């Protein structure tokens, strides 16, 4: 990484008020992203990946409260920004694509119109120009016959096509940051690959930084420069992709890699990670993985835990790293 990071998440803690108590969904999350870089955020369901991305975009559930930390986008703190400033950034400078593309689009508005809406909001175009740009975007995401498809409704398209529309919508204003939240979940494998290649290509073309949120370590390995591993609201390890796979330092990362299917390993040989994510309500131990960890020692239950560098550009949150 060189120069100031594009996105700098610093000590972000976030909790949800629920009827049964406060859920500490994120704790002291620290991550940064350089311009044009691709960062993977991996972890089990419920580890806080999506919560993190929603917090960055400022579209958290109303029950969520940020209790500590900053999120700097090009030096501007998104958490204290006015909703007007935030609205000017969203869709223009930073954009997001979601899982379940079919429900992530307005069901009763033609897809072209939805892209136009974003362009009209941010790009200062006339209706006719926006229309033209929307069709052009649909062409760029390789939708056949974009002129006609612009008038189609989401229900008239396949899931893969809808995700292409989502990408066109997100990239319409050439944002500097794209957050892709499980963009290929629910799509078949060939479509998955096509969608990911598309995101990769467009990101390279426009020097766009990407955060890829996924539970699929293999997918992250293929597409990301660096990977951050999340567990129960903690970022437990961040490292360049090759290094993370070659020498994981956090026991959870090691287990996660061991559960990832790869050539030459039969399904039976894959070892599931024992235990479950801890209940995030009430008081939690300093290491939220300790109860599932085979390397637990008294020191793990000791004082507060802080991430430290195990190697240059390789941080780990563990009292007894591998």
């Amino acid at each position, binding site marked *: 990484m060189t120069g100031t990071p594009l996105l700098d998440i610093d000590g972000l803690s976030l909790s949800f008020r629920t009827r049964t108590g406060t859920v500490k969904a994120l704790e002291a999350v620290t991550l940064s992203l350089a311009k044009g870089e691709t960062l993977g955020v991996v972890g089990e369901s419920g580890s806080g990946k999506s919560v993190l991305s929603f917090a960055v975009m400022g579209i958290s559930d109303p029950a969520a409260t940020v209790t500590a930390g900053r999120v700097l986008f090009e030096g501007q703190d998104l958490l204290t920004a006015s909703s007007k400033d935030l*609205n000017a950034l969203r*869709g223009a400078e930073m954009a*997001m694509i979601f899982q*379940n593309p079919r429900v992530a689009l307005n069901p*009763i*508005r033609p897809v072209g119109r939805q892209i136009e809406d*974003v362009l009209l909001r941010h790009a200062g175009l006339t209706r006719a120009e926006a229309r033209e740009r929307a069709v052009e975007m649909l062409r760029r995401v390789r939708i056949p016959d974009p002129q006609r498809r612009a008038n189609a*409704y989401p229900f008239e398209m396949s899931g893969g096509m809808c995700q292409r529309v989502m990408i066109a*919508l997100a990239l319409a204003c050439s944002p500097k940051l794209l957050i892709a939240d499980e963009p290929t979940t629910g799509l078949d494998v060939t479509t998955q690959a096509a969608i990911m290649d598309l995101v990769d290509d467009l990101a390279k073309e426009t020097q766009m930084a990407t955060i890829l949120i996924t539970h699929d370590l293999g997918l992250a390995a293929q597409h990301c420069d660096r990977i951050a591993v999340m567990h129960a609201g903690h970022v437990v390890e961040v490292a360049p992709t090759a290094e993370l796979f070659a020498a994981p330092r956090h026991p959870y990362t090691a287990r996660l890699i061991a559960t990832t299917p790869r050539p030459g390993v039969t399904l039976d040989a894959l070892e599931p990670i024992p235990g479950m994510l801890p209940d995030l309500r009430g008081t939690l131990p300093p290491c939220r993985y300790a109860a599932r960890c085979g390397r637990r020692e008294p020191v793990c239950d000791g004082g507060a835990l802080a991430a430290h560098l195990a190697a240059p550009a390789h941080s780990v949150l563990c009292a007894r790293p591998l």
Partner: protein
Amino acid sequence: MASSVPRMVGRRLLAALPSIVAVVVVTFLLTRALPGDPAAFFAGPAATPEAVEAIRHSLGLDRPLPVQFASYVAGLARGDFGTSLTTGQPVGAEILQRLPASVELTLAGLVLALLIAVPLGVAAATRPGSWIDHGARVVSTAGVSLPVFFTGLLATYVFYYLLGWAPAPMGRLDLFATAPPTVTGFYLIDSLLARDLEAFRSAFAQLVLPALTLGLFAVAPIARMTRASMLGVLSSDFIRTARASGLSSGKVLFAYALRNALLPVVTTMGMVFSFLLGANVLVEKVFAWPGIGSYAIESLIASDYAPVQGFILTMAILYVLLNLLIDVLYGLIDPRVRIDA
């Protein structure tokens, strides 16, 4: 796609035929089963049994039921709804003449209800649990729990008797105004067509209280439906996408959320409209509104079969047409239903 709407309309009308037939049969039997004897009623209290019999015979009421039914149906087939005994006029003509008054009142009530209920529902949904949410709940619960004849009387008492803001509840126009030439039968529209502002003002003033009374009754279901539907839509994924795209909150709320949330509201409107047609009967009575509701009540009291049957049949046909209209409307808003049509 364009040709599918007439096809759907045709199919739906055909499908409604059995219900209309059932309505014809049931209303015929029900009116016959009602207590009260029209022959005795018309003969008057002083009539001899022979005179009553003679009237019964002249009305054809001494014939067996199937024969009476057959002649009723034969009349309907010719578009003849029978003749009212009370007024001596053909029922069809009387209903046609009075129907616009009822429809104008009901539509005005519905429009008022929508104008109150939809913003109320949206406000409640965007701030669930706030004072505006609770306030909307109180207003709509009160509106639906107070019977219309009571709210009608109360409104008349307050706005006419105490405050003097509203005109006397004496029908569609005040005594000194003349009715505009009939084009649509809706005084508000006809008076504007005739550029008769005086008549328009008078018709409008007369319409406000009964329409409000009727509308208040419809606020509750529409507001509750709007709130529930809006809450569901606001938490859906595509609203999150719209917010993540930085669209203005107005655009998100109205162009994205409300249009989707209105789909179930449109469906509810069909139901509400039919409630209103029923509630109309009482409101017309309270405000001396010359519509088909008060016509039906007067006929019912007189055991005058033909107008009652005509009224129920008209309501049934209105109801069928209305639901058809709602479905067509739904298809225009929601592209997904066009496919099944």
